[in-house]
């Protein structure tokens, strides 16, 4: 038996989704971009970054985890929510050591692209310059924890897709970091460069060796078009 479509609105525009979908899934299909950092299609949503916060019937909810219901009123593109998103991105920049000028991920980085999209020229909070480290022990992959935004994509991908449980979070609060399931180093785990976990990092924290700077400046993912343009272009078709 076919289930009935669910109708709701985002910023006053009527959207149709199917039962069981989250706001994010229905919005993506309809060509409405809700900004996100930790959410990635095909991975179990983690709901940790809070960039995708939208107002649902007047209350804030994470669009990546909240299921759609009939007649729900969602606000996404508002000044208040953009300000909230800007604050989170500002905090992510000052809590890490994000040196875009020499980062291999620059131009293809989702955090950087989100800051561009939100028009951030400088974060409003004081820089923390935390102590962090790099694990380059693996022959094909390296972890630079300076750049990690604790989105959890690698944890989920390694657990659910690769079935390897290579990554996990350890510590709490400012001590929280990504750890590997081995005595000490990434090279002691069974991660492979073809694993999903090695492809999903939104920033330059988990990168493949010997492929950096392959695409020239001006032709990278977010050089000309803001992040989310691919989803928004669906709507115009």
């Amino acid at each position, binding site marked *: 038996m076919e289930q009935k479509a669910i109708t709701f609105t985002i910023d006053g525009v009527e959207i149709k989704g199917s039962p069981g979908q989250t706001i994010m899934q229905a919005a993506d299909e309809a060509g409405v971009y809700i900004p996100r950092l930790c959410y990635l299609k095909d991975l179990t949503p983690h709901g940790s970054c809070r960039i995708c916060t939208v107002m649902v019937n007047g209350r804030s909810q994470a669009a990546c985890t909240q299921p759609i219901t009939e007649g729900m009123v969602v606000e996404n593109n508002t000044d208040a929510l953009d300000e909230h998103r800007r604050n989170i991105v500002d905090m992510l920049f000052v809590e890490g*050591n994000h040196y875009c000028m020499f980062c291999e991920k*620059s131009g293809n980085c989702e955090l950087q692209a989100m800051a561009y999209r939100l028009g951030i020229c400088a974060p409003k909070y004081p820089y923390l310059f935390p102590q*962090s480290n790099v694990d380059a022990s693996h022959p094909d992959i390296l972890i630079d924890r300076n750049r990690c935004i604790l989105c959890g994509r690698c944890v989920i991908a390694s657990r659910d897709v690769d079935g390897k449980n290579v990554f996990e979070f350890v510590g709490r609060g400012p001590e929280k970091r990504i750890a590997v399931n081995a005595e000490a180093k990434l090279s002691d785990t069974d991660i492979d460069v073809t694993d999903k976990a090695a492809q999903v990092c939104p920033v330059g924290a988990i990168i493949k060796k010997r492929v950096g700077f392959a695409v020239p400046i001006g032709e990278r993912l977010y*050089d000309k078009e803001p992040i989310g343009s691919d989803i928004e272009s669906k709507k115009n078709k």
Partner: protein
Amino acid sequence: MEKPKLATTSLAGCFGCHMSFLDIDERILKLVELVQFDKSPIDDIKEFTGQCLVGLVEGGCANEENVHVLQKFRKNCDILISVGDCAINGGIPAMRNDLSIKECFEEAYLNGPSVYNPSGVLPDDKELPLLLDKVYPCHEVVKIDYHLPGCPPSADTLWEALVALLTNKPLELPYELIKYD
């Protein structure tokens, strides 16, 4: 009417932002119609000759001299702009921020792979500005009015921003001109 004045300086930067500024090429002829250069490495004027409308600051604050120059710029410029990633977040010099000053000195003057210093003396002349405990972005030292990110910001970014400010137009940069690399 007298032309407004423009001052520029490089603190803990590499002069790359000034190089990028020169990349405005022939537009510099239009710029001198709009402004008169004051204290700046471009005309080599060492001290302020009066109040400036716009000050461009490249580089963050790594030593006490950087702080003094920055404070002078704040005092003498109506609009102060952080130009480039070093001014905005410390940039490459800020990579020393998770090391102590002692470790930095030992690496630079005693233990570094290319160091030849048989006497083991560390620079300690009162003429030399003291290093700060870490490298600070300019807006953590004085109030900054605008930030132009980039390493360096492109000539177009600098040009658009300056022309907007000098012709009393709102400073609205298009997507392609806000870049962090």
